[in-house]
């Protein structure tokens, strides 16, 4: 919330409400993952992101930095634009931990909840990036393609490398490991 614009912060109230309802529903792992993917994208667009490069919000990119520093500015830009999806990563982690304790109580064994979650996430990310790459390759000689597809390609990179690898898998596994101890 420190990184989001002031007008976007009440959105977190809504996101917390949705998360609370999901918590009460007691979903299966696949349902949790699907809801997570859908809500990550939905909250990304609700916060003001779009598929145009011009909507990348740099207002919070320099919070606490006195001079330009590539890594810090990049990280802060990622956090401020992907604030909604990052919230859903940690919220999904709570849902997965609840699923894990429920499964351990009924089935009596570790059922690899997080591995299933990561597998479905990776399948989604991989197939969407594959389709974008296929479209770019097939249409690379088209006259107007790159005006539309270069922002899409850049956003796919940000979603797959940044959100998927770093945050969903990296941060998610860290939180899950901490919570499962």
């Amino acid at each position, binding site marked *: *919330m*420190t*990184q*989001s*614009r*002031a*007008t*976007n*912060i*009440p*959105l*977190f*109230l*809504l*996101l*917390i*409400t*949705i*998360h*609370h*309802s*999901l918590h009460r529903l007691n979903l299966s792992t696949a349902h949790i993952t699907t809801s997570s993917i859908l809500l990550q994208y*939905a*909250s990304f*667009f*609700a*916060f*003001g*992101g*779009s*598929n*145009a490069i011009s*909507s990348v919000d740099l*207002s*919070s990119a320099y*919070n*606490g*930095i*006195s001079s330009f520093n590539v890594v810090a500015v990049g990280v802060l830009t990622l*956090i*401020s634009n992907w*604030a909604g999806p*990052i*919230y859903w*990563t*940690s*919220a999904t*982690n*709570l849902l997965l*931990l*609840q699923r894990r304790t429920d499964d351990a109580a009924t089935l009596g064994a570790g059922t690899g909840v997080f591995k299933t979650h990561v597998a479905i996430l990776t399948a989604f990310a991989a197939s969407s990036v594959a389709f974008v790459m296929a479209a770019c390759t097939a249409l690379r000689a088209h006259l107007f393609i790159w005006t539309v597809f270069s922002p899409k390609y850049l956003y796919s990179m940000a979603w797959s490398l940044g959100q998927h690898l770093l945050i969903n898998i990296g941060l998610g596994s860290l*939180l899950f490991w*901490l*919570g499962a*101890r």
Partner: protein
Amino acid sequence: MAVAALRVARSWNQTGQKFAGEPDIVKTFLIPEPSRLWVLLSLTYVLVSFRILPTLQGLPYVVSTGLTSLLISTALSFKLAFTVEDAPELVVGLARTLHGMSQGQSLLFRARLVFSLIGLSGGFAVYRCLTGSSPRTVLTSCKSHPAPLGYSPGQ
């Protein structure tokens, strides 16, 4: 209720080149009457503070309450100062009076203070997860630690 919240969230900001300039909640509801924005914002921060408080269980009650209120007040003052620089038309009335009361520290200092406090609380929660006094408190604090702690105040 979740679906209703989702529908409201969908019309919060209007994005996309086809619909640019169309009315959305921020434009038509919050900007004409900024006091609504600050009410909702304070409500959100207070809610987050209530979710952070249980994760600091190992500390004495006074310390954890003090740390949480310090974190929330610095975050709020940073948000006020940032909005004064970013969108001054949103800071009117009570919000501007509150901003005037907080002695004009630079944005840089406030931001670093907020980040270091978040890191401190997060580090403490992680430490409690890893060492843990009794299994039950560790379980509850570890489970509620991730979502409220660094990630809501940090984003």
